[in-house]
């Protein structure tokens, strides 16, 4: 618990820096090499990479997440992307990120027209209260994004 309290101001400062200077996020990250948790810059970079440089649109994605997770070791997560799932129009991949875990990547889920529905669920670890971000890549190249916050009572970071 002590560690948690110590971490918070670091992260906040971090966020402020990035808001001020988005372009130097790389430098900020290199100045804080020992930072244990994923910072906003790392998450933003991962999301940007998943989106292939495109600006994601909102909508189409439904995230199924608990509002409060008592145990961060195993948080049920589910998502569904609206799509007819035909050969010409389907959801290719859904990338899931968590912005305050040690690493932002959670998983990438690849669908095919044979999936029938772009819906999946799994269980994930959450170090602390944070946002879960889903980025969906459609077969026509369009990108959608959704975000939802989960409050975590006991972190699942093995500490």
């Amino acid at each position, binding site marked *: 618990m002590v560690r948690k309290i110590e971490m918070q101001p670091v992260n906040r400062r971090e966020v402020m820096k990035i808001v001020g200077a988005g372009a130097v996020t790389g430098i900020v990250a290199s100045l804080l090499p020992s930072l244990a948790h994923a910072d906003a810059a790392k998450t933003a970079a991962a999301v940007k990479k998943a989106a292939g440089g495109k600006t994601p649109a909102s909508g189409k994605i439904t995230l199924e997440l608990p509002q409060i997770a008592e145990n961060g*070791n195993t948080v049920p997560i589910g998502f569904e992307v609206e799509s007819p799932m035909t050969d010409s129009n389907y959801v290719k991949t859904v990338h899931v990120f968590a912005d305050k875990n040690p690493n932002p*990547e959670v998983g990438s889920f690849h669908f*095919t027209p044979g*999936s029938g*529905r772009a819906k*999946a669920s*799994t269980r994930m*670890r959450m170090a602390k209260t944070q946002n879960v971000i889903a980025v969906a890549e459609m077969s026509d190249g369009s990108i959608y994004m959704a975000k939802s916050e989960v409050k975590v009572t006991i972190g699942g970071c*093995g500490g």
Partner: protein
Amino acid sequence: MAKSKARVKAPKKIKKGEVFEVKTLISHKMESGQRKDKKTGKKIPQMIINKFVCAYNGKEVFSSDWYAAISANPYMAFYVRAEASGSLDMTWTDESGAVFKKSAKISVT
């Protein structure tokens, strides 16, 4: 980890064209690389399953890449459209290269 136990749940009988859910579970520590050995204080190296694939009669219908944020004993549920009778073959691969397999037979009417 060679003894990983896998379970797959899918309907035995299904009508053609219907979309059904497949639930899978495998036992695996999914060592996150963040935990420390209490005796030595050293970090325990990461060892996770990072690839899951479901093939339906030999054709890949769903796959996923996992990172350390996926919980131990990973659960994965997804959907498949029934086309023909046959088998759903799951394959999990971990970072040591170990491969775990489990199949489910389905009959499409």
